[in-house]
């Protein structure tokens, strides 16, 4: 795939369908605008976390609490889900419905797995008495991760809806365009996660 052929960031529409490009141009640009809005939201949550990280109010610190092994597994699961979505996008581009559904299903399982791992981590922390009410540091930790986790949950619901729509409508233009926007969303969440493990988990272990 050459660069000139790519008319939109993140778009993998089939080249033989110019009407797809026209239709997608407006909605995809709007979706990028939304994603940038969301990126600023996360940026401010990161800034808040960074200003709160030492405000433990006598409670436990990140170094005492975080399980780096779990964070690593979470990272890999989310990365794999990003990849599997990409493979789904390749199938979509070829117009092959069955593999598309398969890859979407794999992505869904990985996404739910990620949420499960995160909930297990939260349960473990709460079991040690480290709740969101313990300190400003933990408040910002839980909120940052929960907002990201909620995004992943929304992504999972969206995948289920798209699986249903592929079954109902086939690969109509509308459905294709929606799956591609879902893809942008999903990859975006992995990008946010890179910043999370870099600013939350790794400094806690490294210091």
């Amino acid at each position, binding site marked *: 795939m050459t660069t000139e052929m790519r008319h939109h*960031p*993140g778009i993998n529409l089939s080249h033989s369908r110019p009407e797809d490009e026209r239709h997608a141009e407006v909605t995809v640009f709007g979706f990028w605008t939304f994603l940038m809005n969301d990126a600023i939201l996360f*940026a401010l949550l990161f800034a808040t976390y960074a200003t709160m990280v030492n405000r433990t109010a006598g409670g436990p610190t990140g170094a005492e609490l975080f399980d*780096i092994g779990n964070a690593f597994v979470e990272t890999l699961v989310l*990365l794999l889900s990003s990849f599997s979505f990409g493979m789904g996008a*390749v199938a979509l581009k*070829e117009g092959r419905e069955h593999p598309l559904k398969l890859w979407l299903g794999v992505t869904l399982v990985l996404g739910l797995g990620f949420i499960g791992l995160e909930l297990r981590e939260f349960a473990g922390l709460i079991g040690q008495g480290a709740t969101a009410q313990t300190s400003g540091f933990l408040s910002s930790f839980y909120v940052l991760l929960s907002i990201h986790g909620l995004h992943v949950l929304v992504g999972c619901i969206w995948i289920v809806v798209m699986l249903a729509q592929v079954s109902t409508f086939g690969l109509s*233009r509308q459905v294709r365009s929606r799956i591609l926007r879902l893809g942008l969303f999903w990859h975006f969440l992995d990008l946010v996660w890179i*910043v999370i493990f*870099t600013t939350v988990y790794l400094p806690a272990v490294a210091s």
Partner: protein
Amino acid sequence: MSGPWEGEHQGHAITQPSSDAKAEARSYLWGLGLAALLTALAFGLAVFKIFSGPALFAAIGVLALAQIAAQFRFFLHIDLSRQKREDLQLILFTGLLILIMVGGSLWIMASLDQRMMG
């Protein structure tokens, strides 16, 4: 006039040249490999502390930026080579504003912390 719901997939069985799809899949594989490598490096540096202090944090930060760039390139198919796209300008402008907001916040709050607690 074609409505947005026209299901033109039926009777439109296009079979893409598979070389194209393979190149596409290869791009995702590259992305996966690169991201996994950068992730492993970052976690490895933090856990095994081959070096420490500010250098370690800087290295982790650089690895994160590299991974973001890699995912932009291979997963989102965005790089700097394409000209004249509002989307790219939008992303770069967002990057600038994140820099201003986060950098400014950290500067302001660090200054306050230092003066009020230190």
